[in-house]
């Protein structure tokens, strides 16, 4: 079986984002970029499946600027086999990403697509579900455990009230939640090896997909700021304030 893992290059998880003064977006100049954390979990899951056996090849695909090659190299260093970069400097919305990925799936014919449940930049949480719909494949979103057995996958999902297990026929789309696994750090020899693994460079036009955005950004602003309040000296004072001043208990 082949596994396709789409990955996204985003602002590093630990960077505090700043809204641009002209309200056109957030400042991406000279900011550290990394692989989206949920995508790292997806790569790790695919690599673990390959290590267990039954997986022949892991193909990583990213859609983004030339620098997204670095993100693909990170995945290759973790254990993926080859990469595809669909290179564009345009903003590509989840719907267009899903359409491009559907074309890649047609070409590559993977048995599974594993991807992050959301990217920590636009927080859309759409791409996996949209891809599954376009392919008419089943989906298992927000996965915290995946067991592949023959033509089926048993997936435990993180839902609002607890955990849910579903069975999906493969091929299927799986999106990863935080507790699926802890991604590895690539070793130096594997980082060196990854430099020789192949990356195909493509353009959105090669797939005949229209990536024109459907949403236009009117403005991006800072969220309303919360002011720090006061420090209380004792528990008794706290209870008094909550009961008598605020009336919330």
């Amino acid at each position, binding site marked *: 079986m082949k596994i396709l893992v789409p990955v996204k290059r985003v602002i590093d998880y630990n960077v505090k984002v700043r809204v641009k003064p002209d309200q056109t977006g957030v400042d991406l100049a000279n900011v550290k970029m990394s692989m989206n954390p949920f995508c790292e979990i997806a790569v790790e899951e695919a690599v673990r499946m390959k290590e267990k056996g039954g997986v022949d090849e892991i193909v990583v695909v990213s859609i983004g600027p030339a620098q997204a090659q670095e993100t693909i190299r990170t995945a290759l260093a973790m254990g993926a086999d080859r990469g595809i970069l669909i290179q564009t400097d345009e903003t590509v919305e989840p719907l267009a990403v899903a359409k491009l990925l559907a074309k890649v799936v047609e070409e590559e014919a993977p048995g599974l697509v594993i991807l992050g449940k959301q990217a920590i930049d636009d927080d859309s*949480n*759409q791409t996996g579900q949209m891809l*599954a*719909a376009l392919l008419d494949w*089943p989906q298992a979103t927000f996965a915290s455990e995946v067991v592949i057995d023959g033509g089926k996958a048993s997936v435990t999902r993180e839902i609002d009230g607890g955990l849910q297990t579903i069975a999906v026929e493969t091929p299927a789309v799986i999106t990863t*939640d935080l*507790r699926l696994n802890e991604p590895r750090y690539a070793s130096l020899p594997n980082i060196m090896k990854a430099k020789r693994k192949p990356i195909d460079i493509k353009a959105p036009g090669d797939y005949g997909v229209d990536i024109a955005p459907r*949403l236009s950004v009117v403005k991006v602003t800072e969220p309303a700021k919360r002011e720090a309040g006061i420090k209380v000296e004792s528990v008794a004072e706290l209870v008094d304030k*909550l009961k008598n001043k605020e009336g919330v208990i």
Partner: protein
Amino acid sequence: MSILLVAEHDNATLNDATRAAVSAAKAIGGDIHVLVAGSGAGDVAKAAAGLDGVAKVLHADAEVFAKPTAEALEALVVPLMANYDVLMAVASTTGKNFAPRVAAKLDVMQLSEIVAVESADTFVRPIYAGNAMMTVKSSDAKKVITVRPTTFEKVGDGGSASVETIDAPAGPFKSQFVSEELSKSDRPELTAAKIVISGGRGMQSGDNFVLLDKIADKLNAAVGASRAAVDAGYVPNDYQVGQTGKVVAPELYIAVGISGAIQHLAGMKDSKIIVAINKDEEAPIFSVADYGLVADLFKVLPELEEELTKAGL
């Protein structure tokens, strides 16, 4: 303008998040029809028909909707959308699961987790874990929208809509529900509770959460946790408040032993009153807290329980 709004429920009761979504639909304007897809969910359909502002309820009753998969909801909703301009769902794990499938089938870009309606085609949604707010205008003819329920008023009762039974899709579907392990609790649900008390890494163990439980019982509060506490295995994942967990906005949020990472703040900073209890006075949580208490939580929590008893709670 006509809006199809998918009700959030557990087949027995209508979830209050649906009331918040109806508010968002009213802000867009037009006829609001509520879809109840369930199994034996007649009471939910009745409750939905009584919501203020709802013109009609569509009720699909089938075994497959007892625990609906995204595939089954897609099969039900996509044909219905021929008659509607807007699909609206709550940004719950159910809504997030099926709505993008419908959007892809309709060839439209979904608007995820909106927090405000500016006009019928322009909405505000948080990005970067709520560290920036984006106002976006959709050029799609039909719109698929998920709503963050905490930021909209919940509509009351007062409607008397008709309930129309509709056919459920036949299936079979390529995914099946197998089992569910729901956290059992007599306390209110996290996203609906008026008071939430959450513990972080500072709680040091799952056993120590009993200290929070005791206070929660006194205040009729829900118990939550930071991602650090969930990752450390102190409590199950459905306790998690934050960017990738639940977003809450209670009257009172008490953060105990939580440092206040931006991902946690994203999930609770819209609470009315925030209390932080932490022994590290430099903890970022204090920068958003209305009342801060710099002290050891293991000393504070028993004292708090005692003071609440004294206060007659």
